[in-house]
């Protein structure tokens, strides 16, 4: 492990540790409507927006109203985005004269960016105009994570016994108080490091080998910052953060890794502030942290050891691998990889398809669990869903009706939480089964054996986890996958949230029960251990067969020097 590797990790983890408390407290203040330093510049803008759309910011919503507003608003964006993609040829900021996006790709792209997945069945530089990127998709990159944030905030409010709040107000505040200010800061930092920010056309350059090359550019710095801050993850260009213009220096690699987790980790602390249970927040941070580091280990060590087949030839070092990013080193790739998969951003610095099986498995684990700090807002929401299931399962063993934050977890709550839990494996397992069973699905597989299976699994998984990264090696541009993954993304994004909202409302209506020494404490080392165990076992039982068929089989075959 080189000094550079350790330094990169220390910086990223260090920044999370330093920012978690102040940023978490700040978020809690904003959404408890307490004064913050951004009131003065932002309040007039917010009031303007409220007036423009006729929003009464003082009106709180019920769970049903909140969920309805959220879903309708989001669907409206998806439809508008679809229409704009179809009309691309007639819209401004199109120096490269990109034509209309075809219907299934437009559907796939609109749902993908509209659900904070940012799965890309297209190559940005070769299919989209600056307007589509900067105007259309960038807008979605702000508002869709903001929606994820509102889901969480409303749920936390209900957990802490407060009214659910107003969806539109939360949405606006997410953008004006959190995403926009942070995006501005990081855009400046990225520009400083040489990331382009321009509306000028692509460059045509002559290379030293005497050939000419088109270098795609555009408003990349602003795109990169919101891409990562909002755990969006769709690259401006096809190579995503592997492209030197998106991620030019080790410093930008660190910035991007930090941006992905900054708010996600802080949200955990906000939960502690808003519910008054800081110890619970630290416990959950600890649990997610364990998975985060475990994923890191599963990425780093195989990558560091290299392929046994290559090693057998007497070649060592990661330069001998295809598709591997070389500028950031194993350490830089690891921190980026564990972040992008843990926080389900989905941007990539190195081709995931080229990763060794165990590293690939680590990427998948991030998406199976979907709570390793997880996507913007929704990661913590997933964690709380598992907390409720674990509390019910284990809580019975202390001889009381299980309680979480003083509310009894009974039939209704358990049913809603377990339905929300069921949805994720349902989409993954059925989606994978369909794709391998249908000839049209098999057409998209470029590699045979377990690796091909992993490619399909990964694609479906990426949609279901609203991650958006591609394993590649899968014909994602096939209409079948565009439509299938489009549908999966939408269901994954909204169905479980509805269940969680009803759960929140049901908890809100309950009378709080005082805590006694007979109550199971839902914080501390013991509970953290119990929760970790429950998360591992429940997920292992659900996904073990597909993992065995994909990465595990490939791993054992690779050990036997069998390649695909």
């Amino acid at each position: 492990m080189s000094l550079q590797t350790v330094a990169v990790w220390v910086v990223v983890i260090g920044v999370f540790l330093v920012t978690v408390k102040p940023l978490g407290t700040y978020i809690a203040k904003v959404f408890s409507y307490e004064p913050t330093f951004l009131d003065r510049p932002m309040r007039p803008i917010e009031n303007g927006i409220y007036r423009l759309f006729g929003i009464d910011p003082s009106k709180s919503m019920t769970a049903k109203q909140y969920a309805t507003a959220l879903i309708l608003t989001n669907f409206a964006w998806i439809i508008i985005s679809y229409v704009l993609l179809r009309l691309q040829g007639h819209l401004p900021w199109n120096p490269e004269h990109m034509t209309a996006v075809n219907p299934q790709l437009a559907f796939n792209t609109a749902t993908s960016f509209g659900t904070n997945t940012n799965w890309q069945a297209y190559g940005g530089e070769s299919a989209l105009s600056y307007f589509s990127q900067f105007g259309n998709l960038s807008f979605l990159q702000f508002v869709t994570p903001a929606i994820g944030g509102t889901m969480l905030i409303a749920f936390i409010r209900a957990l802490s016994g407060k009214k659910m709040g107003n969806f539109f107000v939360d949405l606006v505040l997410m953008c004006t108080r959190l995403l926009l200010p942070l995006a501005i800061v990081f855009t400046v930092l990225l520009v400083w490091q040489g990331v382009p920010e321009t509306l000028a056309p692509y460059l045509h350059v002559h290379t030293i080998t005497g050939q000419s090359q088109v270098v795609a550019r555009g408003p990349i710095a602003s795109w990169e910052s919101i891409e990562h801050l909002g755990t969006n993850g769709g690259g401006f260009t096809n190579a995503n953060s592997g492209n030197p213009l998106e991620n030019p220096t080790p410093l930008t690699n660190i910035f991007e890794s930090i941006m992905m987790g900054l708010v996600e980790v802080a949200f955990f602390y906000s939960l502690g502030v808003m519910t008054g249970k800081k110890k619970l927040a630290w416990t959950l941070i600890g649990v997610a942290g364990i998975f985060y580091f475990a994923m890191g280990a599963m990425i780093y060590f195989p990558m560091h050891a290299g392929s046994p087949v290559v090693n057998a030839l007497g070649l060592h070092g990661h330069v001998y691998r295809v598709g591997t990013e070389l500028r950031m080193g194993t350490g830089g790739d690891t921190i980026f990889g564990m972040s992008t998969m843990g926080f389900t951003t989905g941007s990539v610095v190195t081709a995931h398809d080229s990763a060794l099986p165990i590293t690939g498995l680590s990427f998948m684990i991030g998406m199976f669990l979907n709570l390793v700090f997880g996507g913007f807002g929704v990661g913590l929401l997933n964690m709380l869903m598992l907390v409720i299931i674990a509390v019910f399962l284990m809580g019975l063993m202390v001889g009381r009706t299980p309680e979480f934050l003083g509310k009894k977890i009974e039939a209704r709550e358990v049913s809603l939480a377990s339905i929300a839990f069921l949805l994720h494996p349902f989409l993954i397992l059925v989606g994978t089964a369909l794709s391998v069973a249908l000839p049209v699905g098999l057409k998209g597989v470029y590699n045979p054996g377990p690796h091909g299976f992993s490619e399909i699994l990964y694609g479906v998984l990426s949609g279901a986890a609203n991650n958006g990264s591609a394993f590649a090696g899968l014909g994602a541009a096939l209409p079948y996958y565009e439509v299938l993954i489009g549908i999966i993304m939408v269901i994954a994004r909204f169905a479980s949230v509805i269940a969680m909202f009803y759960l929140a409302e049901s908890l809100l209506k309950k009378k709080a029960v005082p805590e006694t020494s007979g109550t199971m404490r839902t914080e501390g080392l013991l509970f953290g251990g119990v929760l970790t165990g429950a998360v591992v076992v429940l997920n292992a039982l659900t996904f073990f067969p597909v993992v065995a068929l994909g990465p595990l089989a490939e791993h054992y075959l690779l050990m036997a020097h069998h390649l695909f």
Partner: protein
Amino acid sequence: MATASETPSKMGGQYFGEVLKDTFAKLNPVQMIRNPVMFVVEIGTLVTLIFTIGAVGKPNFVYELLVTIILFFTLLFATFAESYAEARGRAQADFLRRTRSSTRAKKLKEDGSWEWLPAEKLEKGSRVLVEENDVIPSDGEVMEGVGSVDESAITGESAPVIKAKGDSVTGGTRLLSDHLIVEITTSPGETFLDRMIALVEGASRQKTPNEIALSALLGVLTLIFVLVVVTLVPQASYFGKHATDITTMVALLVCLIPTTIGALLSAIGIAGMNRVAQVDVVAKSGRAVEAAGDIDTIILDKTGTITIGNRMATEFMPIHGVTVDEVAEASLLASLADTTPEGRSVVELAQDVLKITQLPEAEGEPVPFSAHTRMSGIDLQDGRQIRKGAVSAIVEITAPETKDELTTLAEAVAGEGGTPLAVEVDGRALGVIRLKDIVKEGLKERFDDFRKMGIRTIMATGDNHITAAVIAQEAGVDDFIAELKPEDKIEVIKKEQSEGKLVAMTGDGTNDAPALAQADVGLAMNTGTMAAKEAGNMIDLESNPTKLLDVVMVGKQLLITRGALTTFSIANDVAKYFAIIPAMFAAVPALSVLGKLNIMGLKTPHGAILSALIFNALIIPALIPFAIRGVKYRAESADKMLARNIFNWGVLGVIIPFAGIWAIDRVLGLFGLA
């Protein structure tokens, strides 16, 4: 006469046949569908049966047949567990039913004459005549007469109980002397005996809230595993057309779904009800027993619950210049004619102090206690007049110079929570008798246990603050309410409930009824009034208020048992995956490398699958004792309990099946099956 609680242990051969019959009867899919987990197993068994028949004469026939047989036994173990638990209940119920017999009632007519009427035809409100040696036909209230009643049939207490006007009587008990006129207060089929029978038989058993919640979770888990296994078929076909065979997939499914808890869930519930009945408590619903596990606060009456019914003399305290023996002797003489428990305790203490076994012969005229004089005593033939009584009353008739000292002594006693009685002879004060409440043995430890479990105990008493405080401290309760008026209790309950707490209490009087109804768990005493019994949601047949503590334990144990077996059931699956996944793909070329996952070193693929399946089946009967008796439970904090149970059922739940499946595989190897 045997009591209800003794019979289950005697459950013998006569029920065995029934259990066996029920075990098979419960296989009926119409019944089975109420238990989704086992219903899936039943469908799976049918599927493998069809494949077995199709495989006749083929090499895989033995394997298919064995899977089907094991699945069938899995089903039988589940239905057996439920039948066995029910039979235990029925044993209790049958015993109760025999005591009810076919009673005939002497129904009184308007004109005062009576006619024979079968007990089950008695309407609420009708009056019956009960004469010596008659069985009381139904639950009711005594309207006229006094008589002794043998209640052993339902309480197991052999000493007869005196019943007079206003007392409640229970159907099925026998009048030993005199005659009573009883007004029937329950409609036919709703007597306590009927309720108890229905409850222990499981006939009236409804799923409790927790059971419903758990069933929902088990349903979703089953659904997930169905999903995993069903999607695995096309997923595996990616690696080869016939990568999976249906029988093995069924075996995998049955191994994964939570059959252990699914099979035992209803047995746990039934057994829980029976455990309540075994401590001679009739719960009106399972919900009440479960609520008992959630109790945060228990309100207990001081008198009769925390202390033995009456105060006892514990010390003679002479004033200056008088010896202890003098006070003891005077007290003894003054109390000879006093038959109250307090009076008897004075006599006993005096005998102890004076070291005499015989009572002295004292000729004289006893002076009984009156509310007016507030003292009692004796006028001896030798002219001595001895009085004992309230200190303020005695002070009036004694020499003024001893007044201060007597008052000081009395205040000292009162200050320590005792009740002082003053003693004097011929106007000369001798001293004070200390009367004290005696806390029942073992209660302090019990309250300590409750504190560990986070349950707060509150003592309610009409005594003054000081007395209450002393007893409260001695008994180790967390809080007390002194100078309590009957209507205060309901206020205390409401206050606790407004803080979100669940409150339990015991009571027997009519004025307890509103509080009993308000409490989340109201345990009424069987000796209590009908109003109290109607208001509570449990009735203690032995009328022992400390029973409440047993009921709380049973409620908690019920939840723990469910949680423990669910955790165990899910934890078991890890090992089963390691047995089955490598085995099922052993014949698929691209996946045979998964044999590396066979960390148990199971010998053959079929042997591995059969071993996992056999383990899955055998664990059900192995856990029946835990389901019936409840998992071990001790009073400790939630953290400790959680840590212990997580280790016992979660961690060991992962490890045990690895060892179990490995061992079964070795045994199968001996028969050439693995």
